[in-house]
């Protein structure tokens, strides 16, 4: 056996993140690590890459016991990790990030010419194109990921840990990543691959270890299992991977958007006179490749960005001049795309996060004071209703796993009893159980004759949930379909910019 982790235990206050986990990795395999949000995957990998120390347990490489006091120790043993949240310095260039901690020298100074060469050499060798002089903050996440992979390779990583590498990638970039992974495997590298997407596990891994609640619940050869079985192991019950929803007759127009035009922060026109309606009891899905104006659309609708022209009406009321809070009171709720930036205050407790938007309403506001007894009651109710897994309501939002953060936002927004909900990428980075839960909540909401505007880059999600699908391309609506009318191929073509007539 190449690598063994034996009885790894890692505790956080109130949470047993890793409960005697045993993991065995064979040389040259691509090993999948599967588990719900909060199952302990990242924690386990942080132990393996030397970032965190286990409370108990040991690690063996080729049968020899190793101990990692810091990341350098792990790097020396050939372990490299591409983290879920990239570990790059945004204001440094690709080359500077690449050499950090391992700089080529010429006398006292950094040998920049040599450093650049090293980047180019390695990127050539592995077919990973990068621009050595670009600043990290200016390049796409796909590119950043390549830098991370190159960084690990340059330090002689034999074992490459990829923590949810596909969550932030476009489908095209995912294909590229598969190609890279396969060629690394051919070159003799071993890979641990974390993802929530079962079809990705099926497609690329040789074996899978499944975690649930910090424990190993199964180790299988990938080709011996079906996706549903993996889902069952991971969640502990049967999961419906396909969304089930009944037909529902849409009612009156709930939101009406007319000739909406908006610019991005650099002044480029991102929305070009968009017009559409969302009816009560209807889920309207906006399909499109990232960066075609979806972000600006959500921002303009919620009042976070000013439109250049056009109007927005919600339930007959013109809301286009209102500020975000007034829109919220008018019946608009918003699940933001970036939950850590706009959805939650990461350093607030769960209760405080729940209070956002309610803080000056009864019964929480009493004169100038907040009534925390009421707030606590409210929090426990939401935690129970939406099954937020947390040791308590005083826990800081940032220590919750991604899925539980999302559930918390959903709970808060649904509780406003809005007329229309804008859900932007509501299931990004979530596990199958959480996705199932959120999808069901959205459908239940629709069935109460409420309106939903769903923005997603995930085509299957759009197809599964929407009653009507709009395709956005370069800031224009280029296609409209009723549920069941469009095939993924048709949508894909429109999303890529081929006009209707040419299909």
């Amino acid at each position, binding site marked *: 056996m190449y690598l063994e982790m034996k009885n790894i235990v890692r505790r956080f206050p109130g949470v047993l993140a890793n409960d005697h986990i045993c993991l065995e990795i064979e040389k040259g395999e691509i090993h999948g690590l599967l588990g719900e949000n909060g199952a302990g995957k990242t924690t386990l990998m942080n132990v393996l890459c030397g970032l965190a120390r286990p409370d108990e347990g040991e690690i063996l490489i080729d049968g020899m016991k190793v101990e990692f006091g810091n990341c350098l120790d792990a790097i020396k043993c050939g372990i490299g990790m591409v983290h879920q*949240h990239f570990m790059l310095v945004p204001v440094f260039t690709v080359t500077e990030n690449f050499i950090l901690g391992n700089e080529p020298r010429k006398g006292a100074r950094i040998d920049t010419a040599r450093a650049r060469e090293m980047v180019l050499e390695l990127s050539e060798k592995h077919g990973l194109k990068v621009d050595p002089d670009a600043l990290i903050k200016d390049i796409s996440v796909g590119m950043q990921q390549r830098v991370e992979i190159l960084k690990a390779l340059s330090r002689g990583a034999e074992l490459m840990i990829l923590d949810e590498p596909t969550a932030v990638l476009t489908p095209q970039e995912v294909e590229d990543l598969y190609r890279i992974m396969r060629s690394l495997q051919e070159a003799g590298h071993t890979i641990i691959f974390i993802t929530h997407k079962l079809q990705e596990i099926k497609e690329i891994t040789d074996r899978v270890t499944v975690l649930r609640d910090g424990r190993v619940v199964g180790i299988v050869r990938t080709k011996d299992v079906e996706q549903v079985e993996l889902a069952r192991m991971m969640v502990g019950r049967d999961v419906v991977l396909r969304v089930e929803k009944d037909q529902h007759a849409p009612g009156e127009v709930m939101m009406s958007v007319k000739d909406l035009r908006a610019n991005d922060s650099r002044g480029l026109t991102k929305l070009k006179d968009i017009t559409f309606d969302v009816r009560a009891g209807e889920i309207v899905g906006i399909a499109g490749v990232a960066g075609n104006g979806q972000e600006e659309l959500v921002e303009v609708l919620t009042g976070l960005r000013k439109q250049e022209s056009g109007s927005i009406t919600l339930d007959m009321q013109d809301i286009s001049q209102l500020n975000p809070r007034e829109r919220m009171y008018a019946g608009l709720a918003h699940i933001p795309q970036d939950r850590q930036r706009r959805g939650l205050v990461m350093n607030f407790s769960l209760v405080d996060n729940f209070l956002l938007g309610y803080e000056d309403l009864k019964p929480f506001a009493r004169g100038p004071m907040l009534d925390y007894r009421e707030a606590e009651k409210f929090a426990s109710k939401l935690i129970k209703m939406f099954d937020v897994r947390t040791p308590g309501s005083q826990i800081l939002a940032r220590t919750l796993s991604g899925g539980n953060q999302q559930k918390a936002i959903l709970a808060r927004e649904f509780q406003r009893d809005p007329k229309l909900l804008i859900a932007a990428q509501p299931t990004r980075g979530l596990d199958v159980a959480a996705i199932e839960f959120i999808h069901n909540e959205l459908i239940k909401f629709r069935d109460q004759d409420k309106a939903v505007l769903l923005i997603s880059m995930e085509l299957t999600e759009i197809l599964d949930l929407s009653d009507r699908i709009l395709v956005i391309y370069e800031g224009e609506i280029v296609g409209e379909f009723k549920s069941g009318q469009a095939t993924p191929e048709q949508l894909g073509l429109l999303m890529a910019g081929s006009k209707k007539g040419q299909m």
Partner: protein
Amino acid sequence: MEVWSNVFSLALFTATIRSATPILFPALAGIFSERSGVLNIALEGIMLISAFAAVVGSYYTNNAWLGVLCAVIAGVLTSLIHAFMCINLRADQAIVGTGINILGAGLPSFLLLKLFGSQGISPIVERIHEWRIPILADIPVIGPILGEQSPLVYISLVMVPVSYFVLFKTPFGLRLRSVGENPHASETVGVSVFRFRYLGVIISGVLAALGGAFLSVSYLAQFVKLMTAGRGFIGLAAMIFGRWNPWGALFACLLFGFADALQAAAQASNVPIAPQFLRMLPYVLTIIALVGAMGRANPPAFVAKPYEKA
């Protein structure tokens, strides 16, 4: 008209350099600390403590350079307190800095009383004399301005390119800056956040101490209560105005130094402006510079944020 031509003489520029030095040291000090991610508003306090230590050293050894050595030791020790609280205990860096500033205001006055039995000023001590740089001093215009200054002035000027080189051209500098921009990234490539933050703060302490020593054993030859008069803070303003870059900071310091020299020269030549207004000049300039620099300045992303290991 006559009085104004007295103000604008070569001596004004000589004084500009001299006035810039005690701002330049803390500005460079701030750059090292903040680039590593530790907010350092304690510079004023560190300068006061070191200025006092320099006088004590010089008083007891009759050697001003040993006084400077004492200042550096005092500066490093004070910085270590700062570092320990901010890095190990993860205390709020603004509050720790404020605490040290209060210490810096109080401790020297207390010791002044204890050691010299005096309120507010120390005895006159041995000071560092100006050096005449042979060829430089004979060049017209430049000679009178730069050719005959305190060695500490030269050290401060030399520290500008040295700091720039260290921060932006060496592996050490890359690592130090990475720790201030994204310590999580540093940790994953085996760069110790702990170590580099400590180093940043200690270097900062040495530089601030030299600034303090310049005031007490070179510019003057004694300690005067609160003699830094906000120069630690003006240094921080210069750091921000100079965008955490040594060359930028030098430019800002020359500007502030000029304002300071100008007001002094104007007062000396009895220009018809109330001295109270003249004395305000450097501080007003600081505020204007800061307001102007605000929106554009990009501090290191992780400055003032304690780092917690995963």
